[in-house]
């Protein structure tokens, strides 16, 4: 294909206006507020809704919210999550919740931070938090186990507390939960 070039006009042939335009851009940037950060000395302010690493949370009562329903393990596109259910005896001390994960591993090298686990969780037990820079010296170190995930996740203030309410209701009706 032959591209036909337009003839330059007199104004364009002068070049001075183009040079002036370039200088204007340069000056605008020279006088603007600095955007480059001195990372890692200066950390980036993570905006709300950012999808960082997924961590497990406890509620304000200190109960691990995960009940090992394994929906996140099922939905996880890179198969980063691996849950071991508690087995016939249930989770120790779980009360009327009965279930909890015996083991909960997330391979952060596999995780693609898509947020499906948080979206699918029926118990609001896993959240993508603000951590975006995960490092480790070995691959094994990058597989976060339950204790590590819970420690990093912290406490999520649960407004619904459905299991606690169920236990209260059952106790009120004289049925052992």
């Amino acid at each position, binding site marked *: 294909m032959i591209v036909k070039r337009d003839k330059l006009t007199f104004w364009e042939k002068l070049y001075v206006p183009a040079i002036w335009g370039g200088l204007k851009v340069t000056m605008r940037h020279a006088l603007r507020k600095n955007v480059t950060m001195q990372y890692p000395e200066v950390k980036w302010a993570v905006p709300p809704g950012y999808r960082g690493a997924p961590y497990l949370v406890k509620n304000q009562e200190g109960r691990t919210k995960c009940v090992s329903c394994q929906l996140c393990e099922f939905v996880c596109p890179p198969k980063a999550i691996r849950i071991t259910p508690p087995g016939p005896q249930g989770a120790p001390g779980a009360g009327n919740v009965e*279930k909890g994960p015996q083991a909960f591993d997330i391979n952060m090298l596999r995780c693609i931070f898509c947020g499906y686990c948080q979206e699918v969780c029926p118990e609001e037990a896993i959240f993508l938090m603000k951590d975006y820079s995960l490092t480790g010296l070995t691959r094994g170190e990058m597989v976060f186990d339950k204790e590590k995930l819970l420690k990093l996740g912290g406490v999520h203030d649960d407004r619904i507390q459905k299991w606690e309410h169920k236990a209260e*209701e059952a106790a009120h*009706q004289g049925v052992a939960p």
Partner: protein
Amino acid sequence: MSNMSSPVTSENKVSPAPTATGGAAVVAASTPPPDMIAIKVDGKTVFAPKTTPDPITGKPIPTTMIQACALVSVEVPHYCYHPKLPVAGNCRMCLVEFGTPAMGPDRKPVMNPDGTPKIAKSPRPAIACATPISPGMEIYTNTPGVVDMRKGVLEFLLINHPLDCPICDQAGECKLQEYSVDYGQAQSRFVEEKVHKPKRVDLGPRIVLDDERCILCSRCVRFTKDIVGDDALGFVNRGSYNTLSNYPGKPFDNNYTLNTVDICPVGALTSKDFRFQMRVWFLKETKSICTSCGTGCNIVMGAREEKIYRYEPRQNDAVNSTWMCDAGRLNYKWIGRADRLKEVMTRSLGGSAYASSWSVAIQQITAKLTAAAAGSVAIVASARQTNEELYLLARLAKKFGAITDSVPRLGIGDKLLVNADRNPNSTGARLTGIAAAPMGSNLAKIADGIRKGTVKTLIVFGEDVTKHGIGADLLAKLETLIVSDILPNATTSAAHFLLPGCAHAEKRGTFTNVKGRVQRFMKAVESPGSARPEWEILHELVFNVTGQNGFVSIEGLFNQMASDIPAFAALKWAGLGDTGVTIQI
């Protein structure tokens, strides 16, 4: 507001093949055969049998709407109805609208102007599970009215349901979940406190009951009373407090309790064995056969990542209906045991064992067998091996004129499914000529032969012969002892050549049950270590020793066996299907 489905094309639709209920739906002809009734389901003409056998007594009883709908694969949602149980009609989920031909005062059908019979729609719905069909009846399963009724029934069922799907083992195969997706509401209108009932009720050694989840369909009550004959379960209390319970002080512990977990449409009855082990949607399902007795119940193995989590019965009306016993169902844990035989081992005479490889071991065994004199070889092959493996062993035996036998395993049978013969393939062992008549009578002769020194080579497949009359002292006298097994025992530790074999879950093959039904099973998990299916090993040995080539696929091997052994004549692997073929024995 009559038929909402598309009546335009449905007239010409070909109905599915005759179903297991024995009825055939034929659409092409206009008048039904004498023992059939012509009805319409959602505009589709169906010829349904007038009567179907009662699931318990077998006596002919009138065909119901739900059975007629099943003939044309129209699913009517239901909870309490089960094709193998008596009808209870208490869940009301299967309500449908229907009409019958209108009758004039002269008791003659009223006709429409176009010559078709005028249908008088019933003012009230009927439960499809308990309403018999009548000639000319029209059933509407998809009208807005029917959908509204289903929504209403479901809303009532969910009033006191705890909605604890995240911790419920039934999630993923729960009818309440499925129909909630179809007919449920996103928001509950029920604002009162839900009635709470006991959770984690210990019903018996294998069952835990969650009373809150129960929708009171009574399937379990009917199953244990009418199928098993153990009237162990019932309902107590009234209204919202209606609760499933066992008789106080009488545990629910018959040998069929776990079937109630299968038929429970919700997660009320849970298996202690499978409880909180794995979510069902992870399980890869493989069609297989239970190996715990000669009945050969058809099963589905649920496995994930080379670990078997559960057995469930699979429908085969010629063998096990839709049930299986608890003992057989729980007999799977040995497959994943840590002490499974994983490596090929060789031991020189009097020396210690060392790891070998398949190629070396097969070569050495071939050399030993080729050098063996006729009559100096004996074979003990378990009746737990497949037809194909026993057939290959029989070919080896023929070459050497070997004396062969299997080990009988007898227990106590019952009238429902458990057979006294605890070998899954005794019939196969007899038909292939491996087992003596009666089975086990040659074991003493083999022991005698070893003692006298006439038997110098013993081939053992899948049995611990030290427990069956051929003790360790006799095994020590042998020049060559070739053993293939799955788990270690006294015989495997004495073997000169130890060939690790596969459990039935790790290979394909066929078993012949006590009634002569040849049934095939599929591979669910990989074998551990270097264990190989026995038929593969035997195929190599037979080729090396006899020089006869065979088939390297299980399909070809089965077809070859069927053409060689008269009892299996005319059978083909592909023709066995999922439910097998019965042969004359």
